[in-house]
């Protein structure tokens, strides 16, 4: 560590040890930039300056004001309020040079933005389940494993019945609420390792890992039970296809599940 003090700007700049940037690089090599990085940087800042407490306040265009405290501790509401939404790094004792505070704040801001960008790229914003892009990637990966190793999985397509009429009758805000609650019920109904996705307006898809076709019945029962307990008044139709039984090609598998769904709805393509 340099002995230069921030009171001697020239000397300090010459001897400034870019520990934070090295830390960022180390952290990046171990994991992606995200909220975890914010806490890692606060931990290192506390270790370096023997801080008993540290809070970084960020003002983000999507999240608004956000505060992160050393050790993932909660911040007293009074303290949050008194910081008044002013972005910065607040330390106890107050010994961290401004140049390092600024670097920490900027790095944390970047980490939060990148985490949100990564999350948004893979999730549907209304329901917070996987979006079409993430679903296609998961279906492709499952199909490859099924073709190569014979690992079974089941694709379930769900379509809400008469959703357009719900929107027309009760308004789009109500319709969005139904979609949100259906998405939440899907998340509750799948097991760890399964993928639930919103792939269109009122179309959802689920990849049940390590499942033969008949496991889908258990999933559908759980989904109906979760919708009922949440008081969601909407019916849905499903189409199911199993891999490798029906196909190991993702496009063909999707086509089969889709055809079965429309068959149940009494619609011919």
């Amino acid at each position: 560590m340099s002995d230069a003090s921030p009171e001697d700007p020239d000397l300090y700049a010459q001897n400034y040890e870019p520990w934070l940037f090295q830390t960022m690089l180390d952290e990046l090599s171990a994991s992606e930039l995200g909220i975890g990085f914010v806490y890692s940087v606060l931990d290192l800042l506390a270790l370096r300056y023997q801080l008993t407490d540290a809070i970084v306040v960020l003002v983000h265009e999507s999240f608004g004001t956000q505060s992160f405290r050393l050790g993932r501790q909660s911040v007293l509401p009074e303290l949050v309020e008194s910081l008044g939404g002013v972005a910065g790094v607040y330390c106890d004792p107050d010994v961290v040079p401004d140049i390092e505070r600024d670097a920490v704040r900027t790095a944390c801001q970047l980490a939060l933005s990148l985490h949100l960008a990564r999350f948004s790229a893979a999730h549907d914003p209304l329901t917070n389940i996987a979006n079409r892009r993430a679903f296609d990637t998961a279906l492709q990966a499952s199909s490859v494993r099924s073709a190569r190793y014979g690992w079974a999985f089941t694709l379930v397509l769900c379509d809400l019945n008469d959703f357009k009429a719900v929107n027309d009758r009760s308004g789009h805000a109500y319709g969005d609420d139904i979609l949100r609650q259906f998405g939440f019920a899907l998340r509750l109904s799948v097991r760890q390792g399964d993928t639930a996705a919103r792939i269109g307006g009122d179309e959802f898809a689920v990849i049940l890992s390590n499942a033969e076709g008949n496991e889908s019945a258990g999933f559908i029962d759980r989904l109906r039970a979760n919708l009922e307990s949440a008081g969601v008044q909407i019916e849905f139709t499903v189409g199911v296809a199993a891999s490798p039984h029906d196909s190991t090609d993702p496009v063909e598998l999707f086509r089969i599940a889709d055809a079965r769904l429309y068959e149940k709805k009494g619609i011919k393509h």
Partner: protein
Amino acid sequence: MSPTEEDFELELRSLPGVLNVGISHRASGDVDAVKLVIHGQDCAAIKTIASQIASLYYPDATVSVEDASQASTHRIAETSRVALVRADFNADDGICEVQLSYDGRTGLGRAGSGQLFGGAEATLTALRDLGFEIPFYLLAAVSVATVRGWPVIVTLRSPSSDRDMLGIAQSERDLVSSSMATLDALNRFLATSQKKE
């Protein structure tokens, strides 16, 4: 911190009005409790949604929600306090800059009369920036030697009477001491006024 925990916290922070998420863990490493601090939203509604999100990731975790604006209102009603957010001195141009917060708003003041006088003047300017009518002008700001250090004493005088208000504070820097002493003087004035009411 696992990617799952990161996404969990991100989802909670995406909820409207959430300012802070505190998470505590059990010895086993599982998430034990989640505490949200929010502003300007319905606590009960946010708690319901946050509990739903928690049930997806950590079904055994307890969720609590606190409203920062409620806490702040309570605190201000009790003590009529204005908080010092920061006080900086620019050695190049000799300008003191003080930022205060009150009731979720911030006010900024600048003055160029050195750290003692400048800190007090900048604090009065920041208070006016917050919309306060300050019935005093700055009479003196001095640091005094004591056995415990160099506290700063600020004296404010009312133009309409001979009544002076004194404030005292001590911190690591004269600027911060001066600013805090000014607030101390005004808080004494507010406390006295409230008692009279």
